[in-house]
């Protein structure tokens, strides 16, 4: 199956590396980054492109754009891995809309379009008889959407709680373990590349809230936006508060919570017993779903990273191939 990629950063390169190293039956026919692009209907030499990107910062020829890639039509699935824009979702929203309109499947790791325009994009995909998949937008490598949509089909999910932001989890782990202050732990997270230069989205709980919006709209059709989430971040936490929790044999984690039936969507620091399954370490993510038939299920794994996120994207691509392309 042929794939075209928009974005050749951490995630894009992770996908390219996996496709070139593993025998997945995928061929990359077009790639664009912010300043260049390359299109070859017969398949691109991925190692070449990775090398060129590493040495020159460009994946292809200047002047070839994302629009050119979309219009080339030499692909079955468009993989959209450009930066997230949580306000307008652009330019990714436009790219995805064009590809779906042209009758191409789309797989994305970009939270913006899925959080802001889920219904419209899904309707468009259905009308063109193609798939839009977005496993990588929530909890990176953890196959959460697949578990909720398919693995737990038929169950009523009464509650979902989870650790959705690895940066916050890392900061809280370090504050607890080493008694670091919030700002010291944040600084450390930045030095290790776990936090962005502007960590606002992570530490104020917005990133976790966006993921709840994606789940709420896609799994339960709640039709909510970021304004519907009650959000408290971790930036007000003190080392003393963590020590007090410790006295109770507990700790504090940033928890995202959905109670679908009551339309409760909430992100807030919470006190949890230390042996609670959501108390994971460092940058890990974890989600517990409570269901009527399956009982309680907890998934734990890496919420970010080049290869980890590529795993979710590739699983989506192969799912489309195996369930929708080869069967028709």
């Amino acid at each position: 199956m042929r794939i075209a990629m928009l974005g050749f950063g951490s995630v894009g390169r992770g996908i390219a590396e996996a496709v070139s190293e593993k025998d997945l039956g995928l061929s990359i026919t077009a790639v664009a980054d912010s300043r260049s692009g390359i299109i070859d209907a017969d398949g691109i030499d991925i190692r070449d492109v990775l090398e060129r990107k590493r040495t020159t910062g460009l994946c292809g020829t200047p002047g070839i754009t994302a629009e050119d890639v979309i219009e080339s039509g030499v692909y079955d699935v468009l993989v959209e891995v450009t930066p997230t824009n949580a306000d307008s979702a652009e330019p990714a929203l436009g790219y995805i809309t064009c590809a779906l309109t042209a009758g191409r499947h789309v797989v994305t790791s970009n939270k913006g379009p899925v959080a802001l325009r889920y219904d419209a994009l899904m309707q468009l995909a259905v009308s063109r008889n193609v798939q839009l998949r977005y496993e990588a937008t929530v909890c990176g490598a953890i196959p959460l959407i697949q578990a909720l949509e398919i693995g737990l089909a038929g169950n009523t999910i009464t509650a979902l709680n989870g650790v959705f932001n690895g940066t916050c989890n890392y900061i809280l782990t370090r504050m607890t373990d080493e008694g670091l202050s919030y700002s010291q732990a944040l600084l450390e997270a930045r030095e290790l590349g776990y936090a962005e230069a502007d960590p606002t989205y992570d530490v104020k709980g917005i990133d976790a809230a966006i993921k709840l919006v994606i789940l709420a709209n896609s799994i339960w059709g709640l039709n909510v936006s970021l304004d519907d989430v009650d959000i408290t971040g971790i930036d007000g936490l003190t080392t003393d508060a963590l020590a007090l929790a410790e006295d109770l044999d507990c700790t504090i984690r940033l928890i995202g919570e959905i109670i679908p039936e009551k339309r409760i969507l909430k992100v807030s620091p919470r006190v949890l017993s230390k042996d609670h399954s959501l108390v994971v370490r460092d940058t890990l993510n974890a989600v517990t779903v409570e269901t009527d038939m399956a009982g309680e299920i907890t998934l734990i794994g890496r919420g970010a990273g080049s290869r980890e996120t590529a795993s979710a994207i590739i699983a989506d691509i192969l799912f489309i191939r195996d369930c929708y392309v080869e069967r028709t």
Partner: protein
Amino acid sequence: MKLEMKDKPGQLIAALKPISDLGGNIMAIIHQRDPSAAPGDTIDVQIMLDLPGSTLEPLVETLTAQGVNVVRIGEERLLIRRSVILIGHIMHTDLTDTVDRIDSSGLAEVAELGMVMPAINEPSSAKITLKSSSQEEIGRAIDLLRRVAREKDLLVIEPLEEYP
């Protein structure tokens, strides 16, 4: 509580079973056998127990249905506890008032308060434990605490618990 039951084998065990079924905990049993009692007479048993919120009524019903006479129910003490952590200018936003508003609500009492004072002007952190006689009331007391905290710009960190 004080119970009156038939003096025959197995009766006491039968009376204790519903307590554990309801998630209760037996803390003490006082039972004095009267040597002059004839078979078939009734005996008195006093039990001290710790019950989860609002299970007292169902317990009394079950016991009565089993033919056990509940003679007297002692003072019901507040046994449900929930701790939350507060962060902010806890002292300077009138801590006495914060505690009073919970205590005077009739929903719960502040059972414990542990506070860490950091450097001047830095926010302080406190652990506050409320106790109440039912889950419902403690939930409402936490709601109240949340409102007071919002007014005073304090951050409340609540335990992760399922909504009832």
